[in-house]
């Protein structure tokens, strides 16, 4: 039987009914990767030794009629900023070209425990800084829906791997839209969970108060399964929390009220994207959901707040890459400070250096109050906007990105690139959960649903309903 565009349940059914073995399944994916990935370039490295060993264990379980676990036998891909023990982890950067992960990230440990098979590590913008995956120091990933276009970013490799069916599902990280925007560009589902819902232990930190790990999938149901595997409190990440009970139990997703913020339909929104989102709204309304226009008045300030808080945290987090304990190290330097300067000057790419410089400026004496503290205060206002909105509505619906995927090299001005994340950053600033769903199968336009804190369940319910409409 041909294994093509299988979901998690379809794959598990095939395994259980012995249509194919886990080993055959994994070999099938590697064959496809060797045929297609030289063009798409979604993967940075393959973990075939691990995958085949994992597949063997699953095959033994099948032979003994044992329970396979939530994602037993499911071939998955991991963004290359999450540690998989004894495998390379580059974060898309030359500074970590030869780095080997000494342990598993908590999400990787959970994936392994649930029987998930790890096929390889996916391409990304260097240290997750970018919106097109063009900032990878290694390769340019192409959008499988149109090879002339970028896949979005920073988790472009993980999005493209799912879109091209080079894995069943994958994982990425989202600091300002790095899961949702590439999901939208590649026509797949992408979830950014509530801040704290998933452990960040073993994820290379970019901006610690904003980073969150989440899944890419072909369907909303798959995204839900993958989220259920990785969520939960972890003693190794003190910002992670136990899933709280849903504030409301969803009886019927058709009775929910959806808010559409007028600020997200203002200047800068591509006409075709606007029309497609309006169709989504009409479809949901026709299905019985109540639609209400709302206002999130501080929206216009979110991008400025993000580009102050994020680089500040980046400049601090990336201080650890100093050429002393691991990674690239300058062999020209005679003095310690020169080791730092030369290693970091040559090992980091341009966007990373730009953000470190910006963050250093923002946090420096004399500017800290004017930029950093001010941005944190506006962050409070943005969060309060959402709180107020959720007194009236259950969910918020917006476009995921104001634009459609663009061509390679099209956004050379950093600010122009930053603007493609204008609808996703407010969600990270407030720490909310949000999902991007293609407006129709294989479309490169996605809509974003944003739920109150820890209400991922309502995203899945409305998402699954939409897919059936």
């Amino acid at each position: 039987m041909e294994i093509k565009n299988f979901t998690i349940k379809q794959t598990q059914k095939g395994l259980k009914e012995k249509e194919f073995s886990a080993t055959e399944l994994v070999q099938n994916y590697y064959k496809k990767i060797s045929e297609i990935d030289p063009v798409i370039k979604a993967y940075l490295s393959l973990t075939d030794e691990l995958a085949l060993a994992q597949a063997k264990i699953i095959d033994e379980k099948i032979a003994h009629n044992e329970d396979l676990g939530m994602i037993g036998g499911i071939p998955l891909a991991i963004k290359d900023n999450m540690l998989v023990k004894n495998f390379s982890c580059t974060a898309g950067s030359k500074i970590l070209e030869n780095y080997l992960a000494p342990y598993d990230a908590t999400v990787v440990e959970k994936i392994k425990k649930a029987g998930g098979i790890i096929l390889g590590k996916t391409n990304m913008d260097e240290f997750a800084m970018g919106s097109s995956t063009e900032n990878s120091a290694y390769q340019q990933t192409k959008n499988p829906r149109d090879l002339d276009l970028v896949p979005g970013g920073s988790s472009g490799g993980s999005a493209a791997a799912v879109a091209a069916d080079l894995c069943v599902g994958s994982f990425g990280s989202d600091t300002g839209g790095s899961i949702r925007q590439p999901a939208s560009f590649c026509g797949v589902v992408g979830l950014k969970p509530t801040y704290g819902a998933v452990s960040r232990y073993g994820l290379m930190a970019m901006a610690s108060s904003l980073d969150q790990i989440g899944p890419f999938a072909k369907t909303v149901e798959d995204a839900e399964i993958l989220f259920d595997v990785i969520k939960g409190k972890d003693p190794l990440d003190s910002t992670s929390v136990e899933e709280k009970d849903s504030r409301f139990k969803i009886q019927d997703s058709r009775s929910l009220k959806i808010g559409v913020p007028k600020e997200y339909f203002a200047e800068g929104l591509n006409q075709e994207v606007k029309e497609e989102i309006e169709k989504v709204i009409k479809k949901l309304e026709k299905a019985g959901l109540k639609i209400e226009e709302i206002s999130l008045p501080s929206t216009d300030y979110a991008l400025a707040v993000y580009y102050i808080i994020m680089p500040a945290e980046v400049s601090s987090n990336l201080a650890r890459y100093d050429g002393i304990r691991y990674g690239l190290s300058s062999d020209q330097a005679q003095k310690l400070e020169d080791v730092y300067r030369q290693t970091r000057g040559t090992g980091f790419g341009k966007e990373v250096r730009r953000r470190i410089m910006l963050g250093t400026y923002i946090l420096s004496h004399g500017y800290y109050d004017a930029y950093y503290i001010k941005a944190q205060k506006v962050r409070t206002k943005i969060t309060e906007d959402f709180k107020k909105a959720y007194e009236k509505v259950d969910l918020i619906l917006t476009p995921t990105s104001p634009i459609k995927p663009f061509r390679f090299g099209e956004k050379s001005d950093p600010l122009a690139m930053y603007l493609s994340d204008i609808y996703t950053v407010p969600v990270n600033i407030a720490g909310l959960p949000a999902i991007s769903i293609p407006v129709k199968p294989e479309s490169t336009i996605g809509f974003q649903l944003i739920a109150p804190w820890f209400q991922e369940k309502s995203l899945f319910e409305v998402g699954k309903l939409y897919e059936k409409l």
Partner: protein
Amino acid sequence: MKGMLTIDEVKHLAKLARLELVDEELTTFQKELSSILDYFEKLKEVDIENIKPTAYALDAKNIFREDEPKEKYDEEMIATMLKQAPEKDGRHVKVKAVL
């Protein structure tokens, strides 16, 4: 908040951030950073009187635990980590002269 950064300011930032930059990059960064800082001027219009700053999206409090060594940090892991140090002396990581 202010306008264009000077080249000396960009050089000083690079020194603080421990980044070696070539001259050509100094001028590009001068231009790009200045334009991003200009964009932040937007925040001047926001009324932040009596608003408290938010550092984390959730009400994060200090979380304490016992400071005990975990068995998890086994010899294999230590070996993988040590192997990656560019310069070492036995189980010690070596650094260049500070002065």
